[in-house]
């Protein structure tokens, strides 16, 4: 590759297209931000309703009220459930995806497709037999068992995504590692995984996210109120006749959203590193 020959002709055009790209990104960002207007204004309004209007007086009372020990515990529970499920999913899905990606398995794909389509079954329908099973196994109200079930529901998607990202890593790189005497497992961990780190991240974030927002599974499988995650306790702001404490709900939602956005930002920085490493491997 000879960058010298590229420079003079394409540079101005590149600058223009970069400017255009930044312009479009800015517009999209603004459009995505606008609906948040209500959320932010309501969170600072002690008497919030469903109209987007600046509060008569700005107050942090909603946040102060929402940040009570019960809610903090609920957020903690969410971290345990979502983090646990996301990590377990990676641990289980990665080895499972490997044979699917690297071998010609006769039954592998049909089974996977069937499971994948089954995730289209609304969770509400599945919970009836699942609850019965949890009662049989005496697992109701157990956080580890609920985490494991959440892992299982996320697995078909995770394996499927993982397999496709793994397909993107050329076999030739692994073969080089084998020649050097590495086992398949070592090749997977040392060569394949680093190369598909962006994909692995997507799987992790996706699993974490869907678990973080999952209401019905923990709602049904956990009994004790002190074990419930934030997705369940959010209903504390709703009333029986449809009345809603919008201000508190908005403040709670902002706190609920923040950790995952932080996770994303963190991943972005880590990925920056991944890109560099990838470059190094390819160089």
């Amino acid at each position, binding site marked *: 590759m000879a960058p010298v020959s590229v420079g003079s002709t394409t540079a101005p055009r590149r600058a223009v297209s970069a400017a255009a790209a930044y312009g479009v990104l800015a517009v999209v960002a603004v459009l995505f931000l606008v609906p948040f207007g209500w959320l932010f204004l309501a969170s600072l309004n002690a008497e919030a309703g469903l109209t987007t209007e600046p509060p008569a007086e700005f107050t942090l009372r909603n946040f102060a009220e929402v940040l009570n020990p019960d809610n903090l515990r609920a957020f903690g529970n969410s971290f345990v459930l979502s983090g646990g499920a996301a990590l377990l999913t990676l641990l289980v899905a990665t080895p499972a995806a490997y044979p699917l990606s690297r071998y010609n398995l006769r039954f592998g794909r049909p089974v996977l497709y069937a499971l994948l389509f089954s995730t289209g079954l609304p969770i*509400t329908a599945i919970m009836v037999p699942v609850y019965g099973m949890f009662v049989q196994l005496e697992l109701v*109200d*157990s956080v580890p068992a609920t985490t494991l079930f959440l892992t299982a529901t996320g697995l078909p998607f995770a394996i499927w995504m993982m397999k496709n990202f793994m397909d993107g890593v050329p076999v030739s790189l692994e073969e080089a590692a084998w020649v050097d005497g590495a086992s398949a497992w070592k090749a997977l961990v040392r060569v394949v995984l680093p190369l598909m780190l962006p994909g692995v991240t997507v799987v992790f974030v996706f699993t974490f996210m869907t678990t973080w927002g999952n209401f019905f599974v923990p709602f049904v499988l956990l009994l004790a109120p002190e074990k419930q995650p934030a997705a369940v306790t959010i*209903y*504390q702001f709703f*009333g029986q006749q449809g*009345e809603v404490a919008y201000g508190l709900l908005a403040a709670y939602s902002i706190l609920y959203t923040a950790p995952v956005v932080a996770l994303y930002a963190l991943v972005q920085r880590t990925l920056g590193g991944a890109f560099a490493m990838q470059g190094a491997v390819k160089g």
Partner: protein
Amino acid sequence: MRRFIGLAMAAGLAVTMAGCGGGSESGSNELKIVYQKFGTYIHLDVMLRRLKPVFEQQNPGVKLKLIPVTANDADYFSKVNLMRRSASSAPDVVYEDTYVINSDVKAGYLRPLDEYLNTWPDWGQFPDSVKQGVKALDGKIYGVPMGTDTRGLWYNKTILKKAGVTLPWRPKTWDDVLATARQIKARVPDATPFNMYSGKPAGEASSMQGYEMLLYGTDHELYNSQSAKWVAPSKGMTDSFRFIKTVFSEGLAPKPAVALDKNLNTIVTTQLFPKNKLGIALDGSWLSSTWQKAGEAPWPEWQDTIDVAPMPTQNGQAPGKTSMSGGWTLAIGAKSKNPGAAWKFVALALNRENSLNYATTAGQIAVRDDVGKDPAYLNANPTNKFWTDLVSATHYRPAYAEYPEISNQIQKEMESVMTGQESPEEATKRLTESIQKIVGAEKVEAAG
């Protein structure tokens, strides 16, 4: 073969986890109390937590396990029903809506309470109309009522005064209501004269606060308990649809885009009423709780502006006013291993003192006569006496498994009438056909 290895591994995991599951094994000395704790509705939770040590001291050896369920009604029912499907997780005492009692009895979830009630002196404090609401088709009682709600007209005094209406306003017939609404429309053009829930987005509020508040003020009801048949078609049905047509076609109600708004109840309590943009609302007794200091939209001075009136019957037929009621009970699970202790708990939780406490804190309309007369209850909210007096004229929805589906059809026909797609007569005809389809033609009778 390998599948089995996997299975065995997973099963092993499951067994290991069962150890740390905890709490799922329960002796008969433990009573499981399952109830709703939803949003602002924390009062039952507060009360039960307070009663737990009291009860455990009175009944040595029996432990209470409180299981609050944070969810809306539909999700609450789903979870409780799931728990009841398995003997080991079935609750001993459950917070039960009167209106699902019949279907839960059919499902074998509930235990009749007659043997206990016969010797319970307090039972005499419950009026017959209330006892009817907890009696199942087999004639047995399955729950002890905790409180109820009623429905009627809320109105904005400022707007009615501006429109030249004499206060306090007491309409005697539907026509009085319409006349006042027309007067508001003419003289206070920037206000919506009248609101009633109608159509599918508002759901059960449309059927109960809207359509049935009309229908049960005519000469016909939705269900004839003597003949055990649904009543359709009836003149009352068509007249009720005609009222809806009048209100919407004359522009006395919010425009369709607002009337069919999913969040109409929020618009009414936080925007229309406090901002003097609504004259009259056909709504529930709980409306003012939103405006209390601890409510969702505090408006402590609401009493200066807002007053209440009973919903009149169609032509002023006796008793001149009408209302609809729902209400919740404490019931005992059919699979309870210790029903005697469970009953003791119900009797404690709903004695005079605790019922009074619950009615005042939870903003419930009292069902016990002694509580209804208590000054502490009557002074808790200035409208309490008004709403409690309506209990004498109130009606309950037909508590049958088919009702939700029929209610859905009512909402659908209301919506067709309010948007002008159907005449009142057509709506009655279509509703009759739907009811016949849902319950079977032999269980439907025509009237008027």
